[in-house]
């Protein structure tokens, strides 16, 4: 009697969500869960449809990422069918385990705002002011209108408030996509060659920005500093080579953590109070930490024994959530 858990991811086009799914699959194998993964293909409507299809299948639990304000709808659907749900990645503005949605048992996600803030801080700390005494940066945002893009941008905004010596030369929309980001940033940089730092909204965006810089004969990490987010393997490589100043991430683990908690819930062990609303602290990465990172997280993945964290298998398991931390 393997329980069936349904997962809906916003897209599979991006490496981030593939890592998320891969980690969950590993967990499902270890825990003995049948995992049904559905792809919303970047469409809000398909997200809702996929949730409906999971409910129609009467899965035992659902993990989904409520992009495009789909939280309320998804939770309502699941509530009618009495299916427990854990939301990941994007916080929906209402807390878990309330009367409205008793089946909404937990939220696990990163603080995008915090990540955006940390990226900005790391960037501001390194770049040098120009002739007018201002540090000039360019901003390449994520897909306009997604909560992730908005929250990260909010973090940047907070950092900007604290740094009056930083001037934003311009902002473009990179759509979280490498080639779009490259083209958009090329133009931005042409218009503002005084830019010495770039805040890029995710991994693909940062890679696009670095390609644009190289293409114009600039060395990322020397002439222009770039910060990004996601800890995708190529981002780690870029940090290692010094092209990328700072990266932060690891939050694709959230799905696996959610799976453990949901599995226990299905098996009759509720999520302990206090562990139902987790904002993951993300793992920052700079060049000097790369060696440590590779040692601690071979292949980018922490050693994580799912059964060890499941209270069904291990009575006095530590909380499912395990923040990526350097060993020293």
């Amino acid at each position, binding site marked *: 009697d393997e329980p069936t858990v349904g997962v809906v991811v916003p897209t*599979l086009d991006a490496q981030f969500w593939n890592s998320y799914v891969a980690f969950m699959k590993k967990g499902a194998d270890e825990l003995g869960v049948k995992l049904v993964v559905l792809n919303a*293909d*970047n469409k*809000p409507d398909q997200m809702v449809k996929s949730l409906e299809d999971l409910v129609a*299948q009467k899965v035992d639990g659902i993990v989904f990422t409520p992009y495009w304000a789909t939280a309320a709808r998804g939770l309502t659907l699941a509530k009618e069918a009495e299916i427990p749900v854990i939301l990941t990645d994007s916080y929906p503005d209402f807390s878990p385990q309330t009367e409205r949605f008793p089946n909404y048992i937990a939220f696990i996600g990163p603080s995008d705002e915090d990540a955006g803030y940390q990226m900005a801080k790391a960037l501001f700390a390194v770049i040098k002011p120009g002739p007018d005494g201002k540090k000039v940066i360019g901003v390449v945002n994520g897909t306009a209108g997604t909560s992730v893009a908005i929250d990260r941008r909010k973090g940047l905004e907070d950092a900007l408030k604290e740094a009056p010596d930083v001037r934003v030369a311009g902002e473009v929309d990179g759509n979280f996509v490498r080639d779009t980001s490259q083209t958009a940033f090329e133009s931005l940089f042409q218009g503002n060659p005084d830019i010495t730092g770039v805040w890029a909204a995710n991994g693909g965006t940062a890679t696009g920005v670095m390609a644009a810089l190289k293409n114009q004969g600039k060395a990322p990490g020397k002439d222009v500093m770039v910060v990004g987010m996601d800890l995708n393997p190529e981002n780690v490589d870029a940090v290692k080579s010094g092209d990328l100043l700072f990266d932060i991430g690891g939050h694709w683990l959230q799905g696996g953590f959610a799976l453990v908690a949901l599995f226990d819930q299905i098996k009759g062990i509720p999520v302990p109070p206090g562990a139902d609303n987790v904002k993951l602290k993300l793992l920052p990465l700079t060049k000097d930490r790369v060696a440590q990172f590779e040692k601690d997280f071979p292949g980018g993945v922490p050693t994580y024994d799912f059964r060890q964290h499941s209270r069904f298998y291990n009575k006095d398991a530590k909380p499912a959530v395990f923040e990526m931390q350097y060993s020293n």
Partner: protein
Amino acid sequence: METNETSSATKTPNATGEPGVNASRFEVVKRGFPLAMLVLLIVIFSIASPRFLTFSNLLIVLQQGTVLLVAALGMTFVIMAGSIDLSVGSIVALAALATALTADSLGAAAIIPAIAVGAVAGLVNGVLLAKGKVPSFIATMGAMVVYRGIVLLFTRGAPVSIEDEQFLDVYTNRTLGIPHSVIIGLVLMVIAYGIINRTVFGREVRAIGGGERVAILTGIQVARVKVYMYVLLGALCGIAGLLQGARAMAATAQLGEGLELDVIAAVVVGGTPLTGGVGSVVGTMLGVLIITLLSNGMNMAGVDPYLQNIVKGTVLVCAVFVTIDRKKIGIIK
């Protein structure tokens, strides 16, 4: 090969092998293809998943298909007239936004702004085509980008949620077990059927698709009919937007992205050719069901998400391959 092309690929009188009674019998068979396709899918998925053929799942399919259906009804007119509309997804988003912004104050009456916004967007498209003489593909491609841009500008990406009880009651509850949205979809379908088959307007739309120059010289007010037809599509997208908003309980900037392709596919799979002159509401409904069932069925059967799009694209092409009536279309572009 050579002779073959000459006799079959042409729009000549000779193109029909069998005239009269036989021809119409043959057409009945052709019309049966979308239905056969649907039945085939149902059989396959029933085997693959025991829960597929349950009342509750079929109801879900109907619910999922409603937004697509409502937009596709309007698109049937536009395609029947030989034009196209790529902006439907954006109009849906615009209308959902109008709904979300007014639902709290207007309740169920938020349908009025939804329809109004949709109709105005359709009006713009229609005028661009009929008066501005900008080909509909390009006019609506531009409109798609602009309307979506307007939604984005308004919301700045933040979702606008819908919480009004009365509104949600009216548009998402069930009566006798049937969700209201499905009832709305069916009523609109009957109306669209009536308009296409029973009204002068429907005949004029068809005549424009069948031969625009003939229609003009016969005194049909082609420009006006085209504008009306886009307004109709816009208004239906308005309703689709409202239903989509009600379904998601929110309007977001990404709502309805890519919907145009599903809508066009549903209409064409249903047997309305892009060359115009022919159009079937029942066919469109079958097309909507095929497309909706396909993704519901694959999800139910747990088809690998990495494979789903490949399957979906292939089935789409196959569906058109078998349903298209090459005798009626002659030249296929």
